[in-house]
């Protein structure tokens, strides 16, 4: 409730002090910051593994690790990046901070559940990392049976860790759905929701409908290893392909858990930095829901060579191509918004433009992979590796970086150093293409993924790729420097440094504990510039 006696110097950061006040906080903004610290730490670890992988692949033959270590490093790289960085990255970190602000609420619906979800992530991650003391994990992040049943190492710990992290995702999704339905400010109808909220809402639907399937799959895999229940073990009459069906029934929608919120961030960036009413608001909003709906019926495109029926393969191939329709609707509407906009080329917009460019390549190569005849050739080659890195790194991570720079003034009340923020963009963007574009060619030449070694004729392209990877690494280090420097020494920011129209820009930076001193009442859509 509005109080007449609020102290303008009090905000969510300095309202209470001490580490304990952070670890027990129920404030969605503080929980968002906890997620930020966790996700950035996990990203640093997963990124270090990536750098080591590219070092090993710099030359044919052994460079710095043996084949067994290599299998572990790519498993940890994948599992950390998927379960601990990209899935929680936008919803649980940026979404937690921004969602209640953008809909004019004081908090999420269930603050204690929100804190619990962070602890689920941390406990799950701790258990997963503990597997390093039990000879690591070498199954790849997909834990395919029957190998994951028989390999003698810490796979069980990693599986249990991923299971617990799954609950973190479920609880975040549950909170967001209920918050969007029940805690919107007066006048905030569904058609006045910012597009980031539409994207988070669609993501939350996936989180609650798909993640429980991962939970039961990993529970069965745990029982498989502990009790030998045999459901996925052909020796006992079980079916290993059933594991793949279960796993991808979650993990394909999970790909959209990773990319949908990124699309939401990009919609915000494009609108604010074009200073123009977004083109096709309803189309962008509904295409998020459309992508979420279609995503449940495409998992079979991971099983084109696993022995599913031809009819199933053709159906999955066709439905997969349908994903291109709502995705293209978004891209065209973003471009139409940029057209004749009053563009400000600040670093957030650069990342948004980078997203559109890279994500489009990732998306179009996804359509190529949906063609069964082509996929049989490209399956498990570097073409696939390049494709999903274009989507997940070129898409999601670009959006996270853009989103951090965009909402940084709101989170910390200070601006980042714009010059160095742009430098980080250039390094990441250029390094990214240098890393992954050659991998399309390597894949087309037939280089298989997840192999420790390669034929000599692949070496020159692998070297280019490794140099690109180190460039990306440098770019993210610069980004980390920009963020830390901005927190400590950045120029003080006003409530609305970018001229944004959504509600979070109408309160102080950083916002007070209850978000708004006066309950906002919404009378117009989110992007009414001109």
């Amino acid at each position, binding site marked *: 409730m509005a109080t007449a006696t609020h102290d303008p110097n009090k905000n969510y950061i300095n309202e209470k002090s001490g580490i304990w006040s952070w670890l027990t906080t129920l404030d969605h903004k503080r929980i968002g910051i906890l997620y930020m610290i966790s996700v950035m730490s996990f990203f640093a670890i997963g990124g270090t593994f990536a750098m080591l992988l590219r070092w090993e692949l710099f030359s044919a033959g052994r460079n710095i690790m043996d084949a067994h270590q290599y299998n572990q490093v790519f498993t940890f790289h994948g599992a950390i990046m998927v379960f601990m960085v990209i899935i929680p990255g936008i919803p649980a970190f940026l979404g937690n901070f921004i969602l209640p602000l953008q809909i004019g609420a004081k908090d999420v619906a269930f603050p204690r559940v929100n804190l619990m979800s962070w602890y689920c992530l941390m406990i799950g991650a701790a258990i997963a990392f503990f597997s390093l003391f039990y000879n690591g994990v070498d199954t790849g992040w997909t834990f395919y049976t029957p190998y994951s049943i028989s390999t003698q190492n810490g796979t069980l710990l990693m599986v249990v860790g991923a299971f617990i992290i799954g609950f973190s995702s*479920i609880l975040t999704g549950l909170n967001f759905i209920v918050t969007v339905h029940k*805690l919107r400010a007066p006048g905030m109808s569904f058609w006045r929701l910012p597009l980031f909220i539409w994207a988070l809402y669609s993501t939350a639907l996936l989180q609650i409908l798909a993640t429980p*399937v991962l939970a*039961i799959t990993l529970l069965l895999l745990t029982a498989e290893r502990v*009790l030998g229940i*045999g*459901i996925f073990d052909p020796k*006992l009459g*079980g079916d290993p392909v059933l594991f793949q069906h279960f796993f991808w029934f979650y993990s394909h929608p999970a790909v959209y858990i990773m990319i949908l919120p990124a699309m939401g961030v990009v919609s915000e960036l494009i609108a604010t930095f074009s200073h123009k009413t977004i083109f096709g608001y309803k189309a962008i909003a509904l295409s998020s829901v459309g992508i979420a709906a279609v995503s449940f019926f495409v998992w079979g495109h991971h099983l084109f060579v696993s022995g599913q029926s031809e009819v199933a393969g053709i159906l999955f191939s066709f439905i997969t191509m349908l994903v291109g329709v709502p995705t293209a609707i978004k891209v065209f509407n973003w471009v139409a918004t940029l057209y004749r906009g009053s563009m400000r080329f600040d670093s957030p917009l650069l990342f948004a433009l980078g997203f559109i460019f890279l994500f489009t390549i990732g998306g179009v190569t996804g359509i190529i992979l949906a063609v069964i005849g082509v996929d049989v050739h490209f399956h498990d080659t570097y073409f696939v590796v390049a494709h999903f890195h274009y989507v997940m790194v070129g898409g999601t991570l670009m959006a996270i970086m853009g989103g951090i720079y965009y909402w940084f003034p709101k989170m910390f009340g200070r601006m980042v150093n714009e010059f160095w923020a742009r430098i980080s963009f250039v390094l990441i963007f250029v390094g990214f293409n240098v890393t992954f574009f050659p991998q399309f060619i390597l894949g087309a030449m037939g280089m298989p993924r997840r192999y420790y070694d390669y034929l000599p004729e692949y070496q020159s392209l692998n070297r280019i790729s490794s140099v690109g990877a180190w460039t990306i690494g440098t770019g993210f280090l610069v980004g980390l420097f920009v963020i830390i420097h901005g927190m400590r020494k950045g120029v003080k920011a006003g409530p609305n440094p970018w001229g944004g129209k959504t509600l979070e820009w109408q309160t102080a930076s950083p916002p007070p504990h209850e978000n708004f001193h006066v309950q906002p009442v919404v009378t117009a859509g989110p992007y009414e510039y001109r």
Partner: protein
Amino acid sequence: MSTVKTATSGHHHHAHHYESAEHEYVTSKFGTWVFLVTEIVMFGGLFVGYILFHEKFHEMFHAGSTFLNWRLGALNTVVLLFSSLTMALSIYYAQLGKKSLVLLNLYVTLACGFIFLTVKYFEYTHKFHEGLFPGALFSYDGPEAHQFSNLGMYFSFYFVMTGLHGSHVIAGMGLITWLIVRAHRGEFGPEYYTPLECTGLFWHLVDLIWIYLFPLLYLIG
């Protein structure tokens, strides 16, 4: 939890980010329903696995089910259905403000949970005694085991499905214990019974899942 006393209502609480106790009630109830959806999807994975393998090893599943005692399963079904009634009655009496009847019904619900688990305990130990373990641990050496080499898989499904269900019964009993503590403190009444309502929804779902498990596991022979 940072609850505040509101100036208008005086004697019941709601968290600071809700407009009113009513707002908190409908929001909590909606959140519980969303949570139940995730539970249904999770159990759904098991049911899909069951359907696929039941289809594939039709006769083996029938042979496996003959090892279960349908009378004990039926007893547990009645116990859980009755507990759903008492759970619902506890909410009804909270709405009428009758504290002692709320407590009585909660205690009966909790007791039903205990009866269910006790029956399950005797069923489980009997299976262990016979060597009817899941999958690779299966060590029963009767004629059925020679007829169906993967009879252990039936018990994989039996133990995983009833085990996951049983863990939900235990979780529900924990919640009911927490409700009893709060009811003793006199926290529930016509103005505020949200935790009763939400736990009740969860308890009914746990019962409902058993309603499906009972015929699928016990009555297919």
